[in-house]
């Protein structure tokens, strides 16, 4: 800065300009913060987002909608409904009903957390909650399988019904695994995809096992 030592601003040159930052025209929704909108709008918007994600799970294409706007409402609803449907499945005393609600809930959430940690430790680029979101949403096919199994069991519980249930559960298990792989495997380095897919496979296998061995009271 030695060359600038002799620069001085003479006082008769006026310094002009505007200090204020020009404010561009505001887009209409910025005026309208989401706190002010009616509750129905908020709920409908969230429900639509959840519904859209359900559709993405049922037809897994390469889209980033599930990943970008993650939310845990869908997984929570699915997990609670699955755990409720798995209640009351024991032939023993009336006090306990098959896998208790808390057990199913804990297994699903802890399983999802462990898979997420595993994929992060293997060098994945996906964030913690995004991964939880995907794994939770991909339980949808298995929840559908549980519904079908319960309906089939209403009709009877012989070998035929077991075969039907087996086919349905295996198909839905494959669908769940493929759907979650389609979303999660992209975030891994390409040569490590198998390492991430395997625990997902195990996780859905255990849930499918719980569904298949469910016998109603």
């Amino acid at each position, binding site marked *: 800065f030695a060359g600038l030592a002799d620069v001085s601003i003479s006082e008769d040159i006026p310094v002009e300009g505007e200090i204020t930052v020009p404010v561009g025209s505001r887009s209409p929704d910025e005026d309208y913060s989401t706190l002010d909108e009616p509750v129905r709008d908020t709920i409908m918007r969230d429900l639509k987002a959840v519904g859209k994600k359900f559709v993405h799970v049922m037809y897994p294409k390469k889209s980033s909608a599930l990943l970008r706007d993650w939310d845990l409402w869908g997984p929570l609803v699915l997990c609670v409904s699955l755990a409720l449907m798995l209640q009351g499945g024991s*032939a*023993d*005393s009336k006090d306990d009903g098959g896998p208790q609600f808390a057990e199913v809930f804990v297994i699903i959430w802890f399983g999802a957390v462990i898979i997420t940690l595993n994929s992060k*430790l293997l060098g994945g680029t996906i964030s913690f909650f995004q991964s939880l979101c995907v794994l939770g949403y991909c339980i949808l096919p298995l929840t559908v399988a549980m519904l079908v199994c319960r309906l089939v069991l209403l009709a009877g519980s012989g070998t035929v019904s077991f075969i039907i249930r087996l086919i349905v559960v295996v198909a839905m298990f494959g669908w769940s695994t493929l759907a979650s792989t389609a979303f999660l495997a992209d975030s891994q380095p390409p040569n490590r995809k198998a390492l991430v897919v395997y625990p997902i496979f195990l996780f859905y296998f*255990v849930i499918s096992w719980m569904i298949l*061995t469910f016998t109603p009271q």
Partner: protein
Amino acid sequence: KASRAFSLYANIDILRPYFDVEPVQVRARLLESMIPVKMINFPQKIAGELYGPLMLVFTLVAILLHGMKTSDTIIREGTLMGTAIGTCFGYWLGVSSFIYFLAYLCNAQITMVQMLSLLGYGLFGHCITLFVTYNIHFHSLFYVFWLVVGGLSTLRMVAVLVSRTVGHTQRLILCGTLAALHMLFLLYLHFAYHKVVEGILDTLEGPNMPPFQRVARDIPVVSNAVLNTTAKAVALTL
């Protein structure tokens, strides 16, 4: 609260180097875990990796659960799941710590992560044996698998430990303990697991339920149905 979350992530990063594996390496290590090394004169290398062992423990849990289903044991799946997870993880972590402690006493050169890794990969033999024998139900087949497959994976672990220990007494103590625990665990998983769970059920049910003569896998479907209806009838009268 944010700083607590950050410290949790920092702790997770501690584990990151132990998960730095390629699928090819995992497959190679799985196959190697069944091959006992011949050279015990200089310390054998143990990969300190945790991905393979962790996945093997979870696989063992899944196989145990599958075994419960194929043996037609009517159980509360919730208790069973907890017991399965507790048994497998308890074995892996507990026996690793115990052998690590013994190794410390016997001056063996092995770190905790290496011990966890070694024992975890040793469970591969258990997984194979249980997977086969839960689907093909012959006791004699199980004994063959127990000796051959279980024996091979035990021999590998023992050989690696021997290569890292000096002194005959120390080698004997360390390897004898590990071999006994490993083989007995496989025996336990095959035979006693059903009885353990039934024991839990019986103590929780109280003395009112009729004792199930449930010799695993030998009951034909008909008597199972009879037992079911009996149990339901008794439960209704309670």
